[in-house]
């Protein structure tokens, strides 16, 4: 079982890192999710792998599974869930505002000049860029 768990964590982490290095936000989101799964499994494994033991101390049982990693994983899952939701919302916003889902928002040369309004906004009406 140790080898199986180790292989699982390793595969998830490797896939996560690979996807994280992609240029599209969607792949990055999936990569971060896989990495979060890997972390959760890893935290579980750090409480030592045991089967069929009660999680909370039981007077009848001889031994019990370490309850702390389970609590940690629960917290980590909740946090990762919220973060993923936020990241997806942000990725959609970036897709809408930058016009593509590249993580660097490429293909728009004027992105490089900061503080510039988009040409479609009415605040920029008819002003010339350079007075000199």
């Amino acid at each position, binding site marked *: 079982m140790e080898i199986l768990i180790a292989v699982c964590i390793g595969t998830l982490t490797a896939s*996560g890192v690979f996807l*994280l290095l992609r240029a599209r*936000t969607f792949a*990055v989101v999936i990569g*971060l999710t896989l*990495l*979060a799964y*890997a*972390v959760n499994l*890893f*935290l579980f*494994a*750090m*409480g*030592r792998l045991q089967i069929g033991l009660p999680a909370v101390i039981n*007077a009848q049982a001889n031994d019990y599974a370490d309850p*702390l*990693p389970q609590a*940690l994983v629960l*917290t*980590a899952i909740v*946090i990762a869930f*919220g*973060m993923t939701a*936020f*990241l997806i919302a*942000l*990725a959609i*916003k*970036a897709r809408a*505002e*930058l016009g593509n889902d590249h*993580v*660097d*928002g490429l293909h728009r040369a004027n*992105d490089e*000049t*900061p*503080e*510039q*309004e*988009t040409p479609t906004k009415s605040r920029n009406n008819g*002003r*010339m860029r350079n*007075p*000199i």
Partner: protein
Amino acid sequence: MNLNPVIWSLLLPLLSAIVLLLLSQRIKWQRSISLFASSSLVLITFYAMGFALSSTPQTYALGNWPAPFGIILVLDQLSGLLLVITALLSLAALWCAVRQNTDQQGVHFHVLWQLQIFGLNGAFLTGDLFNLFVFFEVLLLASYGLLLHGGRRQNTKAGLHYVVINLLASSLFLFAVGTLYGILGTLNMADLAQKIAHLPADNQPIVAAAGLLLLVVFAVKSALFPLYLWLPKAYANTTAPVAALFAIMTKVGVYAIIRVHGMLFGENAGALAGLHLPWLLWLGLITLLLAAFGTLAATTLRQTIAYLVLASVATLLIAIGINQTQTLPALLFYLIHSTFIAAGLFLLADYVRQGRPQHADRLIADFAMPRNTLIGGVYLFAAIAISGMPPLSGFFGKLLILQSSIQHPYFWWILATILLSNLLIIIALVRVGSVLFYQTLPRERCHDSALQTQCLPPHINPQGCGAIVGLLSIGILLTLFAQPIYQITESISAQWQQVTLYQQQVLTTAPFDNPNKTLYWEDIK
């Protein structure tokens, strides 16, 4: 009611965030409550700091669970100092945000702000490694919201980078925490430190790996080379009050390194002692040089300030790496100074941006902004302070850090790098100042062109400039009262050296005796 300052510095921002969320349609109420909460927090943190200065580390057991099992909040002088800095900074930046109407550019500004303070205070107070992770997530999630507040396209792009790199860091944090728990069986920092001191030799490499993984995580937060690339864009593209508040965010990373690595891999850690120090010293020196080059290469005022924040954090990390007895007080002195001055500069940059509607804060010659001399004078003052020139507080900070490193074997490297980068920073600041305030175009050009609308004198909203005065005057206070403040930082450092006292205090925290208790483990048995 229990008036323990430890718990109230957490509860106050949290409760006010909840109340603010319920009042999300009433901006006036929101503003009053938010400002009231921030100013009360200043009082509470000052009380907490005074309390911490006069006694041993105070603990608060959350849920009344005793030390290594439950989560412990610890208020010692170091965390007290950071609480005070955060509260003052938050009040000043919030005042500016309210007066400049920054808080109306999007919804839930005040809620996010208070949650951010909650996360920051929690990260400073916690004595538990996993709880530190949780508070990091709280403050990061709030900071994502604040960073994107009222945002434009550039903002979204920088925000995406910031979020992704911090989420990756969070995963690494959990890996490191898991490893430490798997080997040592505890997450309480005081307990971890004791267990590391008696670690069998087989397990040392794994714990060292976990420790260095934690260093990577904190290096992302504090923007150490090569993990700083997210910082300049994120800081330069957000609104001014948020950027000012973020001046403390990088210091959270510095604090976490001092707290976690200083305690876990301090002098008592046996074979693992000082695991992180060489990395911090050399990477810090590289970061400092690159930050200095960054200030030269920056194209806007706010980018320049973002690189200055980077430079100040690099100086702090170098100071951690030097690790001589006199370094910690010097480091803390410089930390107070650099946080407030950088925040003041970020706020000032916003007025510059308003005064130059054409080019905003880009380094291109433009018509003189209204009150050019006044704003330029304030800029000059802040530039002297942040570049570490006499007579202001930055000079004392850097001098003290350099003085403490005289005994260090690589003293000349440290000296050369700090002085060279300082020179580059001064050149960059002079260039920024002369382009923005001296190379102004004459107004007469307006009359012979068809650009009349461009020439109308821009309107600078002077509201909230008291925040800048307040922040920069802390620089003056640090100069005038350098001796007493340095004595405080020395006392903080002296308490920090007594790690065993801290551990003892944390691990002997007894639960409150509750007379109404109905269930207890013995009863169940």
